[in-house]
């Protein structure tokens, strides 16, 4: 257990310091743009931004990529098994996503409170009533994207560049096929049922109410699927 603790500590502590650099840069840029546009326009009334969580999303996607590229080599050098590396990486994703979701929840709600024109990502979708569900949703949302990028990088590493390109083409083709199915093959009733199901999965009920648990559950299932997929790939991953 000491080994597992040390590897989790390594993953979390070496990623932690970059969070504050990210936020410092983000808010400095937002502040600079706001002041510049405000001074040029002569008023600050219509100056502003929304959904700063998207920036965090990009950051956690980068984290998902680096989660494999950098750390896998370092940890395999230090004799850790792929199972331990996987556990530590997922722990790091959860740790970083948890902190960033907390910061974004607090900042998003405060900014909305100060300036009603600002909308956070979660607030725009579900409102500002439930802070805990706001944090939980963002947390799972970020972990899902970390896990997705982690899985993609693992697959690219496993199958190589050429097959990855073919897989990308096939994936694009599948998307187009799904769109075509919805537009030309599926009946209007079936399309409505699918959209309704997806809306409910994200908490938007047919009677117009919002269920806060469903989106969290949906994201949890997505995270679990991506996590199982990542583990299936990493357990056969070799150092290149």
């Amino acid at each position: 257990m000491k080994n597992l603790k040390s590897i989790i500590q390594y993953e979390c502590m070496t990623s932690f310091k970059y969070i504050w650099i990210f936020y410092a840069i983000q808010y400095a840029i937002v502040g600079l743009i706001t002041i510049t546009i405000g001074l040029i326009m002569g008023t600050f009334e219509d100056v502003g931004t929304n959904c700063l969580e998207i920036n965090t999303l990009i950051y956690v996607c980068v984290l998902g990529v680096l989660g494999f590229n950098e750390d896998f080599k370092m940890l395999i050098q230090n004799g850790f098994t792929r199972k331990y590396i996987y556990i530590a990486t997922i722990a790091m994703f959860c740790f970083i996503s948890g902190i960033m979701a907390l910061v974004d929840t607090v900042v998003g709600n405060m900014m909305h409170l100060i300036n009603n024109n600002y909308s956070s990502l979660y607030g725009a979708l579900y409102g500002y009533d439930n802070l805990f569900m706001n944090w939980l949703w963002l947390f799972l949302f970020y972990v899902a994207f970390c896990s997705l990028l982690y899985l993609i990088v693992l697959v690219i590493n496993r199958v190589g560049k050429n097959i990855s390109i073919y897989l990308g083409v096939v994936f694009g083709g599948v998307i187009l096929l799904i769109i075509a199915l919805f537009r030309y093959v599926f009946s209007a009733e079936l399309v409505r049922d699918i959209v309704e199901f997806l809306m409910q999965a994200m908490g938007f009920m047919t009677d117009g109410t919002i269920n806060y648990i469903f989106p969290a559950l949906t994201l949890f299932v997505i995270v679990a699927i991506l996590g199982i997929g990542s583990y299936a790939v990493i357990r056969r991953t070799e150092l290149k």
Partner: protein
Amino acid sequence: MKAIQIKNVTKQYKDVIALDNVSFSFEYGKIYGFLGRNGAGKSTLINIIANRIFADSGEVLIDDIPAKENMKIHDKIFCMSEADLYDTNLKIKDLFKWTDRFYDDFDKEKAMKIANKFNLNINKKFKALSKGYQSIFKLTVALSLNVPYVIYDEPVLGLDANHRELFYDLLLKDYENSERTIIIATHLIEEVANIIEEVVLIDKGKVLLQNNVNSLLETGFSVSGLAHEVDAYCADKNVIGYDELSNLKIAYVLDEKTPLPKTANLSLSAMNLQKLFVKLTEKGDQ
């Protein structure tokens, strides 16, 4: 059994067989030279032992424990790699700190002392070090880990002569102080010839030879003279190679020495490890 046992290990990359049903052991408490030409399969086998890549078939046991994906061997073996696998953005002192946390048997104080002997700047980031100092960092970690099996893969890559001498000196002192198995994979055969006790020679994915260095040097010799006399003397011997010039011939033999015929004008010479290595691997080419 206290040993690294390699059992019927095979590894293939597309149409190249990197390791072909390799079986042998690195016994506990010896210094091994793991020798082979470029592409012979040394790094592939080291990577399989260190669980970095997987064998297609066969297995590796460390003290009878399967090495594949097994944390039970974490504190038994350490492999210093030729490749740079460390986090290049971390400072050397931080890399020491993390190694100390990862391994129960890492002596951080010893690492600091060794770093000092090599003038390694521990406040520099790994990526800011020269190739030679990156190697020094890696071997400092390996020298400071008190695990039963330590593998050095090209340990003196980029090191100047003074640092190489210092490394070999530290390695031997370390071995004297605490018994363990040290495996040195290198091309610089003559440099390690005086250190190693056992040799494992690998070529084209197969083990050509595993023997004690002293007995190898005792049985390895060259015989030179007129070609027909050399051929006659070597008729029933294990000849691993020839050099020929006009009607003169040198035969390199790995066998028991027998008295030279009194009528023949032949001379015997000792064969060093490097010559033995070259001739054995040349034989593989033919």
